[in-house]
């Protein structure tokens, strides 16, 4: 496989094989347009959807019976649901990074993976958005966080990080959606014109908005697309920073720390790319897309993980160091408790997953052997979830007054919602793969063209 990056910054290794544009279009569009997909696809979907039903079940139970059904008490009034929020939002970040940041950096290798990465973002963020609402004591009133012209007059408290979250997450969902849909329009046009049945033509055609690839349209499209990318880039950094403010602006030892924003963003990319790999590896395998999602992609993703992971590890280091260096007895005790207290195993498990396994990524061998990478990604995502658990829960169980110290244990509802959300996520990914082109056809074609020119 060609190693040297070319002077024009285009690396042939990102598009193996040598099909014509028509073949590319055919191959990618084949999946959504195929009359039927192999049975194992649907088995996969069914499996995940069943787990997804668990989510719906537990959520309904939670809403009916009350927030007391999940593992919370008074020192630790936040639990799994908040952990899930932070985790899912983090995962979302990879998609935006790939599609926006890499676009601005003209990293063409993004082209074949940005579509499903963005889809992943959307679904992750959509899920993440539900948890804070479910986590309310009276979810029916969540809209009181908005400034509304109603007769019960008090306004939202603009100083509250939760209000910031509300704005940040909402903005993030909307912008990602626009960005994703914009990228889809030309491809939908392709599907429209490739579709055989009238129905599909009309449906895809409707969403293609009558795209016909006029040069003038492309011109504006390009500008708008780059604008959105330019807007999404600071947004994606801001979102997880704002999430981290929930903690940093609190007074609790273990929350109140200035390192959080960068360290959360890095963590987000870390887990996000892990999730990209978790999805990409099976995809390229089952749909024979090795030509589009090449080892080069995996290699690059691995490198990004290595970098962001290193930052996260640095974050852990700083946190402990500052706890010790601050000389603040509460901070010190908190850190000591994290390492050797009742929840110590979570801390060490986190280190093992996020810092330990990370070391393998130094080796190209590891970065380019898909299924090993897949395994690493899985472990790292678990570790990242546990990291958030360590931050959110263990800090709370040991705060200022020993009299109120108390441990908290999750209930089956907590686990139901966590695993259910995973099921729902993958089920939605299956639907996405079935209904929409999982790569940006026109960009791949463009890439192809550029490569040809370059030769």
């Amino acid at each position, binding site marked *: 496989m060609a190693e040297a990056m070319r002077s024009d910054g285009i690396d042939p290794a990102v598009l193996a094989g040598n099909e*014509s*544009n*028509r073949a*590319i*279009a055919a191959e990618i569009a084949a999946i959504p347009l195929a009359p039927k997909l192999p049975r194992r696809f649907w088995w996969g979907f069914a499996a995940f959807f069943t787990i997804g039903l668990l989510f719906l079940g537990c959520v309904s139970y939670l809403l009916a019976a009350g927030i007391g059904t999940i593992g919370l008490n008074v020192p630790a009034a936040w639990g799994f649901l908040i952990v899930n929020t932070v985790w899912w939002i983090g995962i979302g970040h990879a998609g935006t990074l790939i599609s926006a940041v890499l676009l601005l950096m003209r990293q063409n290798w993004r082209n074949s993976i940005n579509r499903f990465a963005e889809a992943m973002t959307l679904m992750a963020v959509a899920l993440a958005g539900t948890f804070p609402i479910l986590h309310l004591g009276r979810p029916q009133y969540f809209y009181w966080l908005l*400034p509304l012209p109603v007769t019960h*007059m*008090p*306004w939202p*408290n*603009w*100083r509250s990080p939760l209000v*910031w979250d509300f*704005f*940040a997450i*909402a*903005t993030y969902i*909307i*912008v990602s959606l*626009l*960005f994703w849909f*914009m990228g889809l329009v*030309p491809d939908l*046009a*392709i599907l*429209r*014109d490739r579709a055989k049945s009238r129905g599909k033509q009309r449906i895809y*055609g*409707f969403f293609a*908005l*009558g*795209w*016909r*690839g*006029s*040069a*003038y*349209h*492309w*011109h*504006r*499209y*390009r*500008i*708008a697309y780059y*604008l*959105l990318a330019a*807007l*999404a880039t*600071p*947004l994606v950094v*801001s979102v997880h920073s*704002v999430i981290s*403010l929930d903690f940093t602006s609190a007074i609790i030892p273990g929350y109140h720390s200035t390192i959080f924003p960068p360290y959360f963003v890095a963590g987000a990319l870390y887990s996000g790319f892990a999730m990209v790999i978790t999805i990409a590896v099976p995809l390229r395998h089952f749909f024979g897309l090795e030509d589009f999602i090449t080892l080069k992609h995996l290699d690059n993703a691995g490198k990004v993980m290595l970098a962001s992971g290193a930052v996260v590890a640095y974050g852990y280091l700083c946190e402990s160091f500052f706890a010790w260096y601050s000389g603040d007895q509460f901070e010190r005790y908190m850190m000591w408790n994290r390492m050797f207290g009742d929840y110590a195993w979570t801390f060490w498990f986190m280190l093992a997953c996020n810092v330990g396994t990370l070391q393998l990524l130094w080796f190209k061998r590891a970065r380019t052997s898909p299924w090993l990478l897949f395994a690493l990604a899985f472990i790292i995502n678990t570790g990242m979830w546990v990291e958030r658990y360590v931050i959110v829960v263990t800090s709370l169980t040991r705060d200022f007054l020993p009299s109120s110290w108390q441990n908290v244990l999750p209930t089956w509802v907590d686990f139901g919602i966590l695993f259910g959300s995973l099921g729902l996520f993958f089920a939605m990914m299956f639907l996405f793969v079935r209904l929409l082109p999982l790569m940006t*056809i*026109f*960009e791949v*074609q*463009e890439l192809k*063209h550029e490569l040809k020119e370059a030769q």
Partner: protein
Amino acid sequence: MKPSETETHGLIAAFATPEALMKAAGRARERGFTRLDAFTPYPVEGLVEKLGGGTSRLPVYTFISGAIGFFGILALQFYSVLIAYPIDVGGRPLASWPAFLVPGFECTILGAAFTAFFGMLVGNRLPRLYHPVFNAQSFSFAGGDRFYLLIASDDPRYDRTKLRRMLHRLDALAIEEVLE
């Protein structure tokens, strides 16, 4: 039978490569055609300039609406804490502006993003589900390997037969009249 010029939207020619299309477009411009359009499966650098377009105020609008988003939400926040309902919250000053910047930032992005996206649609007059070029037999977006040049029939120098000949010489793969 031939359709009359009034019923036709224009003449469309398909080319195999972007280069061919560029060449054709350039030639058409030299000949003084003004009502030109081109259709490509993916953006082709410099094509729109060749056709004589290529300026957009979208960035300006985007910037403006971003600013509106920012100052709008800031105004709302100050109004709500200073005028509408001043409350002592945790002993913090009523106008805790540093806190207000966060929603400010988010709304900037939101406003700008909306304009960038919908501005693009409006500028391109999209959605437009029905369009004459779709009537062309040869016109298809499906393959990604066809590049079309359209000369609209309302072009002052529009002449079916001459055009056919010219496009022929530019080795168009297919030449066809597009009905309204």
